[in-house]
């Protein structure tokens, strides 16, 4: 076919223009901002003060920011393990031909539909309550008084309390992705394996898992992106002021750009931009690692 340059230009221009305006320009501007001290995010360029790498070195030496990165790492790793294993387990069970499949799927997915505010209130004021909480009543009922007395929201337990509540809502989403991946695998493989005498576990280990590589990659990338953007749950678990156990880089960034709590604290949108740059780099690294470690191009099915 003869190439028609004019047509190509005409149809590409709007898309390219939009991409440059909506994606490229903000990215470049954010990177640029990270080298400046900017009091207000919409300050004109003339008010920016160039500080070189000062924003990055300040972040590296701030205890609270390091704590927020540590929290993020824990959310990503521990939370990731919990969510991925539960999601995979539920997906395998749901696709194994059990009855009431769509009912169970709906139940597991339900927390995704409920507002995070309502969910967090339920966990904070009911489940973890040291006075009449679900956990307290449960442990009292089975006679484990020492566990019934635990204050689940004290500093020692707050992080795990937050993580559990968060994971509870995330399992359904990743389960759906796994389930659709499993359903894509043809039944013929399982039939053949059954004829050859493979049990359910063997089928899972040697058929399902290898063929789910691509889906794993999708899930891990999605999980990384949502983890890095961890914000709402942190805010809900520590209203008004941030908390060492629940703060994440995103919350720290918000504090730097819009001020912290009710006090008029120093603001620096440049610092916020520096955090944004760091987080983006982290996501890109994870994405790159996933792409290299979980190759599935060698399999066709």
């Amino acid at each position, binding site marked *: 076919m003869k190439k*028609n*340059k*004019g*047509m190509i*230009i*005409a*149809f590409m*221009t*709007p898309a390219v*223009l939009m991409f440059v305006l909506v994606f490229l320009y*903000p990215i470049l501007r954010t990177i640029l901002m990270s080298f400046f001290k900017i009091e*207000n*995010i*919409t*300050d*004109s360029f003339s008010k920016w003060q160039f500080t070189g790498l000062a924003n990055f070195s300040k972040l590296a*030496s*701030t*205890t*609270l*920011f390091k*704590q927020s990165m540590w929290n993020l790492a824990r959310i990503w790793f521990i939370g990731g393990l919990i969510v991925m294993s539960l999601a995979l387990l539920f997906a395998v069970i749901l696709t194994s031909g059990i009855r009431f499949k769509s009912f169970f799927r709906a139940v597991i997915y339900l927390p995704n539909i409920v507002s995070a505010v309502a969910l967090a209130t339920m966990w*904070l*004021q009911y489940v*973890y*309550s*040291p*006075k009449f909480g679900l956990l307290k009543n449960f442990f009292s009922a089975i006679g484990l008084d020492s566990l019934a007395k635990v*204050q*689940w*929201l*004290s*500093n020692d*337990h*707050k992080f795990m309390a937050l993580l559990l509540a968060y994971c509870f809502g995330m399992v359904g989403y990743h389960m759906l992705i796994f389930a659709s991946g499993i359903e894509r695998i043809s039944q013929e493989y399982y039939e053949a394996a059954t004829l050859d005498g493979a049990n359910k576990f063997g089928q899972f280990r040697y058929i399902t898992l290898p063929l789910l590589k691509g889906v794993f990659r999708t899930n891990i990338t999605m999980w990384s992106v949502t983890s890095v953007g961890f914000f709402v749950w942190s805010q809900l*678990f*520590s*209203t*008004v*002021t*941030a*908390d*060492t*156990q629940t*703060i994440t880089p995103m919350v720290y960034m918000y*504090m*730097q750009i*819009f*001020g*912290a*709590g*009710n*006090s*008029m*604290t*120093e*603001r620096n949108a440049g610092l916020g931009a520096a955090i944004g740059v760091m987080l983006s780099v982290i996501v890109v690294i994870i994405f790159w690692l996933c792409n290299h470690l979980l190759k599935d191009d060698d399999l066709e099915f």
Partner: protein
Amino acid sequence: MKKRTMSLILGASMIATMLAGCGGSQEAATTAAPAETTAAEAKTEDAAPSGEGGSLVYWSMWESTEPQGKAIQEAVDKFTADTGIKVDLQFKGRTGIREGLQPALDAGTNIDLFDEDIDRVNTTWGQYLMDLEELVKASDYEATANAGLMKACRDVAGGTLKSIPYQPNVFAFFYNKAIFEEAGVTAVPTTWEELDAACAKIKEAGYTPITNDDAYITCMFGYHMSRLIGEPATETVVKEGNWDDPAVLKTAEAYADFAAKGYFSETIASNVWPAGQNQELAMGTAAMYLNGSWLPNEVKDMAGDDFQWGCFSYPAVDGGVDGVEAANYGSQVLAINKDSKNAEAAFQLIEYITKGEFDQKLSEYSVGIPADSANTEWPALLADVKPVMDSLTTRYPWAAGAEANADMTPIIKENFLNLCGGSIDAQGFVNALKAAGN
């Protein structure tokens, strides 16, 4: 060749159409203003250009469904009915105005007046405010205004008046009078020793003397520090990390002492707001809670009609520089954009909201303190707050300076919760803050 020209023209016209479809607002397309702003801007430009037909644009921090929002809406309706000046009233909500106002103003959005907290308006948004001294003088506004708050507004704006206070509030100890009575505490504590004695009696009577929530616990630290060395010095300690200052250890020791005596709620270290205020204070198991005068309104449905509210200023401490005359008090304020072409009408609207009938309504609907000094009828729940408010002469900012350093607030909070919960001692508290450095 002809075809190529044609396709270029077609392509260009397509782009032009697309851009035109974006609302035709050049400003909005080239700045990073949020979409909401753009829409609002387009709307106001179409409907009511300020200064050209007597109309105003007002951005409010409330939601239309809140009591404050309802009262303001009524005031605005009356204003329009009386003067014929149309008001485009936009309820932005807390985060909406906090995140959106400054970008909107920078982008040149037409906003005549807006409201938010006294400190944020005057410091963070100070550069956008119109000086109101002339307007206030012309209308003799101050004849019935709260003098203390007007002074506070002038102080935070650097000596001149750039905002008008409404919805005043004060941060003090709120308590359950019935428990005080039952325990035999006849007078409110004015010194730390008296508070100690009162707590002992209340504990004896079988109640929790003091509770709090994670959201406000740093205020207790800030108040005690400021009682000892004054608020400016407290802020310096917090900002510069002078944790070796003897006042820090003294404060920690006072609270460790109370913790050891069992004066704090057993769950104080794990109370996530609003657990303490709802499940302990309102339910009548705890006697005192350091909080703002918005508290009775927040818990009134849980506390019930028979709950008797008392209020006293944070007690004075031995050898301290500040006494019960100092507290964090403030208000929401209304301010006029310095670029507003309709300042007089805007000020007139401010008078509608902050004076007479609608100030009274605002107070009634929200169980808040009236701003108009002629409105002497305070809501019954706040009857005890009036003498406290009237006795204040020194103003602390939020948390009495304890939260002035955003990098430290969560660390102070964590360790102060541990201190009150008894899991660390006074020296442990100081060490933890020192370890955190900044």
